[in-house]
């Protein structure tokens, strides 16, 4: 119903024109509000990359920190983060996926399962520092794992668990009920149906959810800083297996916190470069998840 000059039926009265102006204004205001989130993000990321540029090279990734962490690279932190992410997901992904299978395929709608749902939602809302307190009380002291990679990874695992449950459930719920019924009708049991029909049809969605947790586990600082991550650990440059599981390690997120707040005289571009490496990790993980999702959508059969 745009300005129809010469149109016979609709003549724009001042009221209509005012209405249209109002609509255009509203559209621009909302657009500006959406842009107000996107533009600063891009500017900030651009600024970080520019400031980080002098340190951004392969050498920075592979080198160990030098001269009291004021120079050098981030290898021990990078490899520590990889350790933490893999161990924590190796624990939380199976538990989370099985829990989601229970909630979506087995659970009836009764009070007990509503309590489980509530627990999942609340677990997702527990502040990260409370997870740290829990990890300290349960894994470091009560379970006697001490300050170690194991304690830190288990703390991270519990933190990523509710999100894995939620995303897996969504993937399972997107498999049409008729698929299951068809399988039951040829005599398959519930578990056989899950194994041969439900899981193969939802595996990409499940994987997407798990992959997205890589960036979350890699970025979290508070839960690991009191359970197993230290300021500094001396390891060899480029060493792939520098840590034992009962030892403490370094982590990228903690390293960024340390060198930007605790260590004086750090070479200017190093904290920026560390932040950019963390951001790059997040972008890569999200890109992987998004492409998996696009691929999934392209071959969805229903």
């Amino acid at each position, binding site marked *: 119903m745009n300005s129809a000059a010469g149109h016979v039926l609709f003549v724009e009265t001042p009221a209509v024109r005012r209405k249209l102006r109002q609509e255009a204004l509203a559209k621009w205001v909302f657009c500006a509000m959406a842009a107000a989130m996107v533009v600063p993000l891009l500017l900030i990321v651009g600024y970080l990359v520019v400031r980080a540029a002098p340190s951004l090279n392969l050498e920075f990734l592979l080198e160990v920190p030098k001269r009291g962490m004021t120079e050098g690279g981030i290898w021990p932190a990078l490899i520590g983060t990889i350790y933490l992410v893999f161990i924590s997901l190796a624990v939380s992904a199976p538990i989370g996926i099985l829990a989601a299978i229970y909630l979506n395929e087995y659970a009836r709608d009764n009070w007990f399962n509503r309590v489980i749902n509530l627990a999942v939602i609340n677990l997702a809302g527990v*502040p990260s*520092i409370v997870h740290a*307190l829990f990890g300290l009380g349960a894994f470091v002291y009560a379970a006697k794992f001490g300050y170690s990679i194991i304690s830190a990874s288990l703390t991270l695992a519990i933190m990523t668990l509710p999100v894995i449950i939620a995303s897996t459930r969504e993937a399972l719920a997107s498999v049409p009920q008729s698929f299951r019924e068809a399988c039951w009708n040829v005599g398959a049991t519930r578990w056989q149906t899950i194994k041969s029909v439900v899981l193969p049809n939802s595996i990409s969605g499940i994987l997407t959810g798990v992959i997205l947790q890589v960036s979350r586990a890699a970025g979290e*600082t508070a839960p690991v800083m009191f359970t197993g991550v230290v300021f500094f650990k001396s390891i060899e440059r480029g060493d792939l297996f520098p840590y034992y599981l009962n030892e403490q390690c370094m982590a990228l997120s903690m390293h960024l916190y340390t060198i930007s707040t605790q260590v004086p005289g750090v070479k200017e571009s190093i904290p920026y470069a560390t932040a950019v490496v963390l951001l790059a990790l997040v972008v890569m993980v999200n890109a992987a998840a998004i492409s998996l999702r696009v691929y999934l959508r392209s071959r969805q059969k229903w």
Partner: protein
Amino acid sequence: MQCGPPNAPCGRWGGEKILEALVYLCGFSAIIFVLGIFVFVFKEALPVLTNENFSLSQFLFSSDWYPTSESNKRYGVFAMIAGTVSVTGLAMVIAVPFGLGAAIYLSEFCGQKTRETLKIVIEFLAAVPSVVWGFIGLTVMSKLIVQYTGAPVGVNVLNGGIILALMSVPIIVSISEDALKAVPDSYREAAIALGVTRWQLVWRVLLPAAKQGLLAAVLLGVGRGVGETMAVLMATGHAVHIPHSVLDSVRTLTANIAAELGEAPAGSDHYRVLFLTGVLLFTITFGVNLIADTIVRGIRRK
């Protein structure tokens, strides 16, 4: 569920029974972990509650925080509560209008392509690690604040509020968008049949119809803000006092735990009071998430 799978014949499916038991166990794990978190954090805090030098009302309502004083140790977290409230409040003042505006733009005004792109950006915004946000607050934002407001220090309530707003916008946008989508199409059709503009549709029909969902979105944003640790630790400065303006430095409940847990000897009163702060945080976020979930569930049922 109306029809179910056939029962497995007895005896032949032993492995399956074990797997299903495992599925049930994992399904219950969320409850175990939530209870575990509460029990372990509370257990560490408990001895201080029975300590005669400690009073709960002083803990909650006094702003004297002298945990390491030689003669007169006092543990009052009121200043930290004020810090958390002020930073989260400011963040919501910024994030709620922008988040709602962006959600309205996404669901009502923009085209399919723009929506897909914006959603990817918002997902990325949500995935940026909190320590990177903290770093941005410490470097980029604090410089800008000193430059434009003339504040003596750049790490203050305003800085933390802006950073926290950027962090909680993604959750507000995605939940609000869901709430707007959940408004029945018949409402829209009825309004459009009356000849309203899209602005009038949003203002007079969608917002009133979706107001509960929008409230849930805001609550989840608050929950995120209250529990955020690393970003506020780095961006709000470290002053334990009640803020009088947005340019004052503060310390939040979460930042207080993160900053002092490393120095508090295990088993000391100081250490236990930090765990008690954790119990307080757990309770707050538990309540907020519970209310938000009840609202969301109510909408789904409708």
